[in-house]
């Protein structure tokens, strides 16, 4: 008994200490720089810092270190490492320290923790949802003053350039990607610059389509017809594999023009409406007819199905252009079994196509030393506007470059021309991504938008496989999803 008494006594002691401490209420967070006080993003106003005053002198050439977090694999880091010396030719005193945090979630978790201790990096790979989360600390720098800055900067080779973006540089950006930087409020505050983008594409078995006289579907009704037709030809197959359920839901909302999420703080999650429940029900029927499956539902990569040599297969995959290489047709003793064709995913209204845009952007973090911020901006500008870097990075990653002028670059042109449905799908996917660049849309980004994305993904998965009373099941799924999202930001 003595032992138990001692433990009880100990814990009582611990708890009493807690109570003592807990009553000194009030916040204790260390004080961010009060200078740029901003409101907390009610109804569309800037979520974080209103604006950042760029030092009048621009970059004073002092020695600074820029820390850059990303999720690049070894191959892409090699490309980065060849271009950092190029940057240092212009600005020798800026040392770039970059390291990979594994995957996107790894980068987000690392930065989130470091922000709480005021030890965040200077530049980071990011998605709009991540930036919204970081901006709760008001430590993400709005880029507008930098973009518009006319302060002169002289680099080591003596040529003078303006600190901000020149008109051609601004125009050179692909409109859809550039707009993504202003998804955080309705007054156009730019928080990110696009770095390297991917999108979704419809991969299809071109040989099979030509053999059976099928035409590539451009609308969802055509897709249903083609699936039915394919099912007749090969009953054991699953005609269509859609990789990401969340992308599918968000893209459909955009294509129907029905509400998904909004920046209005009191009503962020608006996706529970008639139209959305309608298309989810339709796709449920597709699933039960065996027309479609997804990566999670199938239990393995749909690319495995698309490139299967025997057993169950699929003839169309809607997936990320970044993963194009996985859709390469298998070769049996030297001969590719079929040619992979690529097209824009089916649309509700092909005249006004809507395709989701993904891939990393770059954001800038506040730092005690303003020169560090300016140096980081210069490096960000270099990565996003240097044509040869964008070209080489695109070729290595299979992601589309963010500036149009890359297409005039001769080596890039040659690479694009080598695109083929047999063995160079990466180039083919970049070509497609560039061709549908004006179809990109961006969903609003706010603290909680990533939760919305997760919840609609789970909703779609669960709804697709529902049997029995599907309508009420779908209604409940929508209600729960909105409930969980609201709870997460309560």
């Amino acid at each position, binding site marked *: 008994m003595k032992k138990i008494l001692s433990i009880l006594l100990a814990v009582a002691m611990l708890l009493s200490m807690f109570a003592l401490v807990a009553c000194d209420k009030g916040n204790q967070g260390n004080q961010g720089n009060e200078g740029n006080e901003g409101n907390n993003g009610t109804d569309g106003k800037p979520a974080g810092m209103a604006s950042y005053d760029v030092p009048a002198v621009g970059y004073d050439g002092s020695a600074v270190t820029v820390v850059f977090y990303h999720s690049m694999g070894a191959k892409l880091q090699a490309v980065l490492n060849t271009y950092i010396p190029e940057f240092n030719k212009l600005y020798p005193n800026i040392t770039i320290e970059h390291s990979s945090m594994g995957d996107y979630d790894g980068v987000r978790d690392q930065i989130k923790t470091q922000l709480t201790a005021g030890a965040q990096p200077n530049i980071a790979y990011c998605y709009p949802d991540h930036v919204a989360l970081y901006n709760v600390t008001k430590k993400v720098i709005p880029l507008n003053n930098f973009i518009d800055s006319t302060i002169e900067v002289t680099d080591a080779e003596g040529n003078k350039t303006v600190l901000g973006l020149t008109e051609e540089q601004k125009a050179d950006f692909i409109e859809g990607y550039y707009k993504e930087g202003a998804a955080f409020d309705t007054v156009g505050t730019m928080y990110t610059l696009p770095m390297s983008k991917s999108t979704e594409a419809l991969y299809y078995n071109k040989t099979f389509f030509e053999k059976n006289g099928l035409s590539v579907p451009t609308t969802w009704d055509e897709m249903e017809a083609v699936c039915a037709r394919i099912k007749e030809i090969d009953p054991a197959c699953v005609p269509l594999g859609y990789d990401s359920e969340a992308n599918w839901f968000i893209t459909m909302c955009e294509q129907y023009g029905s509400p998904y999420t909004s920046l209005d703080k009191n009503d962020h999650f608006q996706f529970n409406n008639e139209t959305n429940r309608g298309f989810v029900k339709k796709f449920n029927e597709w699933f039960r007819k065996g027309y479609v*499956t997804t990566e999670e539902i*199938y239990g393995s990569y749909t690319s495995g199905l698309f490139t299967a040599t025997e057993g169950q297969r699929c003839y169309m995959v809607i997936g990320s252009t970044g993963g194009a290489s996985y859709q390469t047709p298998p070769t049996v003793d030297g001969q590719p079994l079929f040619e992979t064709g690529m097209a824009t995913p089916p649309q509700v209204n092909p005249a006004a196509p809507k395709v989701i845009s993904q891939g990393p952007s770059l954001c800038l973090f506040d730092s005690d030393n303003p020169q560090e911020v300016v140096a980081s901006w210069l490096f960000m500008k270099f990565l996003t506007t240097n044509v040869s870097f964008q070209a080489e990075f695109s070729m290595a990653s299979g992601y589309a470059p963010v500036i149009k002028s890359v297409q005039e670059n001769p080596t890039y042109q040659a690479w694009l021309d080598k695109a083929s449905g047999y063995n160079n799908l990466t180039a083919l996917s970049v070509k497609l991504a560039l061709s549908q660049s004006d179809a990109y849309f961006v969903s609003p980004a706010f603290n909680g938008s990533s939760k919305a994305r997760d919840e609609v993904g789970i909703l779609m998965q669960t709804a697709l496989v529902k049997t029995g009373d599907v309508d009420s099941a779908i209604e409940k799924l929508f209600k729960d999803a909105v409930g969980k999202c609201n709870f997460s*930001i309560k």
Partner: protein
Amino acid sequence: MVESKHKWKAWLYLAPAIVLLLIFTVWPIINTVRIAFLDGYNMLGAVGGETYEFGIKNFTDVLDEYSGFKEALINTLLLTVVTVPLSTILALLIAVCLNSIRPLQRFLQTIFFLPYVTNSIAIGMVFEAMFNIIGLSPDAASAESWGIINNIIGLFGMDPVNWINVNSGYWPNFWVMVIYIVWNALPFKILILLGGLQSINKQYYDAAKVDSTPRARVFTKITVPLLSPMLAYVVITGFIGGFKEYSSIVGIFGDDMKAVGTDHSLNTMVGYIYDALGSNEGRASAAALILFAIIFVVTMINLYVSKKKTHF
């Protein structure tokens, strides 16, 4: 215990441990409690200069309909109540068998210790691959491949089970996790119990032999009672470990903590705290305090029960 003249000396010995504990264990606990009572506290918000009111909103939020806390609590309780006894009994049987054979004893003991040396998330991925069914048809009648485990149980004439795939029920998911948790918990328990067995005086077994005691009775009447302090220890730490279970879910079901197409989430308490840490540290801390209270009560019960049960 022996009276030592100068009391301060004892504290001198404890100084390094105390200092480190104060900084890296006690302060976080105090901080956790502080945050738990600050409504909707968010660390990033605090950095951004936001202020939070003192109150118990976090605790009420945790019990909110959509918070998923109740499911997490039920999952954790169920998992612990099943895995701790199961793994303890299995470990005891294995330890006793290991202790009673000479040839192959070292080899088998090394095998049973394997799970202790590997990263549990990686093994979670392996388990997921083993139980995973690929290409399950919408009516769940046929599948591209029923997965390894189903093939194995098929050998024994049982028909395949939808363990963790589309529309798999709560209980198949539950048993997959039980198998994973027991598999992970075995090595340490076997180590402790085998250690205990080897410290039992051999003559008790000789005495039992001379009294022509059947094997089963030797096990129940001599081995288990003499091992009871070790068993009590293994059960108590087992419960504490059980309540803190988390990696098994991530390993098998990945980040969204549920099988495809099912409504129930398989999250556990620590999983709940981990998710809440992302967006709302106040709520996470409140949940953690509730978890601590539960573990504390259960451990007290265990201590009391084991005090009565252990024999000397």
